[in-house]
């Protein structure tokens, strides 16, 4: 084309640029080498993984406190590493503080987490909570994780609206329907539902109606015993056992806000905080979000009644945080000392009180949070269940199925699909 005469580029500047780039690279290489060591002069450095963004600051103050209390162990917090990559590289965090749900299943069931059964802290755990862990993921003969925080979810309700319209907290399904009618007549949406975000339906309407009617752990135990053939003819199946719960879900869905199909989680928090609906099916995680809009809101909780027997009332729980130490960690002792520090009653109980959660130990104090006291009774009586949507393996898109029911599909074909998925998965594994 148009060849310009080659400009004489001063050699020095290019060379010094390359040297600069090289030095930068060497710096990275050195930094990479320096990082894994760090156990000089009797100080052990452990990495501590906690990824809940809202509590990172809180754990940073705990780490500072721990550093003050002793000089042998230094803790480095990690909130961004990719867990699978860490395990593949054989350099997992020395202490994990993570959701105990489907994300941890793979690690537990392959025996990647060490046994903590011999720690004194393991003996302080409330025996009612142990089955919850076992149901999520279990490695035979091991205490793979120590639960740290338990969140209980039920119906959040606007206390002021309930008082204004003279509605008492319903304990039977008929009461609930009557309450809904009252609100509807007054022009207030009884429920604010957010069908755009599938997970909100799965953890809300879907899990609550099932948990209020079906004995969830027993159902899944029998379902697993059924093997690879689950259909209308088998003794237990989704189509049979979830049918009436799904009918309730459809009925309650008719009391939702009219625009539910286009509303997401953020919209729900906003609308409930503004008093646009009387009830909101969300867990305590929504309380912080609601407080962003209306910090002084008068919120209470009650378990969703799905039958007419008040004895059936239960709340949905999940182990929000659990502590574990991987087998691959080379600094288990140091990690254990920080675990013990975190499990001290005053530290653990403060954490749970500050973060809208319930304790996991035998002598955890009752909650004083006005939004959660409504659930204390059920927590004490162990009237709780793990959400069905959490137990169904993540290969089955149960949240999407729940959404299609919420948006108007007939429950039967969806439940039949769920049976088929379950059978195929059982056959495969």
């Amino acid at each position, binding site marked *: 084309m148009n060849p310009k005469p080659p400009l004489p580029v001063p050699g020095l500047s290019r060379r010094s640029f390359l040297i600069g780039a090289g030095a930068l690279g060497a710096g990275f290489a050195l930094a990479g*080498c320096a990082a894994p060591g760090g156990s000089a002069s009797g100080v052990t450095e452990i990495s501590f993984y906690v990824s809940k963004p809202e509590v990172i600051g809180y754990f940073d103050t705990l780490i500072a406190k721990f550093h003050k209390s002793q000089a042998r162990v230094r803790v480095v917090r990690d909130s961004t590493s990719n867990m699978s990559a860490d395990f593949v590289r054989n350099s997992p965090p020395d202490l994990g503080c993570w959701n105990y749900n489907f994300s941890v299943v793979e690690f537990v069931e392959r025996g990647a987490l060490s046994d903590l059964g011999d720690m004194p802290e393991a003996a302080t755990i409330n025996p009612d909570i142990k089955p919850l862990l076992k149901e999520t993921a279990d490695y035979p003969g091991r205490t793979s994780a120590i639960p740290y925080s338990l969140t209980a979810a039920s119906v959040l309700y606007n206390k002021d609206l309930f008082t204004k319209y003279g509605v008492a907290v319903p304990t039977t399904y008929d009461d609930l329907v009557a309450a809904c009618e009252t609100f509807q007549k007054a022009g207030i949406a009884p429920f604010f539902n957010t069908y755009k975000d599938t997970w909100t339906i799965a953890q809300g309407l879907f899990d609550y109606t099932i948990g209020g009617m079906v004995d969830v752990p027993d159902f899944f135990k029998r379902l697993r015993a059924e093997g690879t053939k689950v259909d209308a003819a088998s003794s237990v199946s989704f189509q049979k056992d979830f049918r009436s719960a799904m009918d309730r879900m459809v009925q309650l869905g008719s009391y939702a806000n009219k625009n539910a199909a286009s509303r997401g989680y953020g919209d729900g928090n906003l609308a409930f905080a503004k008093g646009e609906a009387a009830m909101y099916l969300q867990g305590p995680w929504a309380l912080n979000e609601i407080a962003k809009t209306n910090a002084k809101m008068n919120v209470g909780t009650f378990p969703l009644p799905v039958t007419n027997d008040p004895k059936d009332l239960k709340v949905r729980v999940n182990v929000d945080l659990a502590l574990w130490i991987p087998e691959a960690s080379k600094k288990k002792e140091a990690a254990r000392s920080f675990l013990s520090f975190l499990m001290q009653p005053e530290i653990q109980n403060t954490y749970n009180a500050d973060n809208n959660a319930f304790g996991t130990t035998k002598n955890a104090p009752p909650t004083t949070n006005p939004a959660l006291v409504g659930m204390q009774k059920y927590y004490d009586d162990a009237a709780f269940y793990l959400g069905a949507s959490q137990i169904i393996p993540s290969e089955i898109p149960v949240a999407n199925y729940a959404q299609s029911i919420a948006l108007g599909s007939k429950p039967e074909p969806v439940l039949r699909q769920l049976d088929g998925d379950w059978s195929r998965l059982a056959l495969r594994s």
Partner: protein
Amino acid sequence: MSTQIPLATSTATGELAGTDADSVTTRRAGGRGERVNWPVTIVLIICSLAILVPLYVTLTMAFKTTSQAVDGNAFSLPAPFSVDGFVQAWNLTTFPRSFAISIGVSALTVVGTIILSSFAAFAISRNWNRRFFRWSFYYLLAALFLPFPVVALSQVKLTGLVHLDNPLGVAILHIMFQLGFSVLLFTAFLRSIPDELEESARLEGATTGQVFWQLIFPLLAPMSATVGIFAFLASWNDFVMPSLITSNPALQTLPVLQQIFQTQFSNNYNVSFASYLMAMAPAILVYLFTQRWVMAGVTQGAIK
């Protein structure tokens, strides 16, 4: 020699050149007060809105308070003007450090990509008649069909074994994954440089190194700018690779650290948008100053 004209590039350029020509015509017509090409103008207005509206939301969100950010009115102006989002984002990501690491990784990627791929392209285009060089060109191009997630786990394992599980390893992998596309661009561009130029330099007694550094590399400048910009954007915006490869959280890049602002259960729009704005700034600045060369480079690479 030039039997293999890369089709992909010329098509892309055809489109680019087309748009450019259209906009020029429109501008000229509008300026003279003559007939305006309305369909094209409307399309272009819509296209620019697609960029400007999100940018506007990003800007205003960043200066809102948390309670205003979640109120559902994305387009409202920040009522109490707040820089709280910036302060929080700055602290949560330890901005100076992560910014420096991101810059370092991107700079290494850009320099490495330009040098390595121009080397390769020079060797390949000057030895096109030899089978080894032709095949190595196809080999490098084959990398275009290899997305990172496919080889992610083995890369994680390998980088861990050789202690490259740090930003340096990320930069090396970025260079590798940029190589295919960059060699393609450089090779196409090198075809437009006449062999006679090189021959005359050789007659003067220049070695291959001198020919490359003093003759060819300066001529490649516009294409180097294009390749550099693509490499910069790919490296600067990458999330998956640094998040998987870097093991030390203190050496993590900016996009990975920003994931903590958004979870299933909480929204921190003002903090996240403030952070995105700070992260976006270099990419926008780089583009503003170098867009002339991007356009020039892309067109020169393909028109033959």
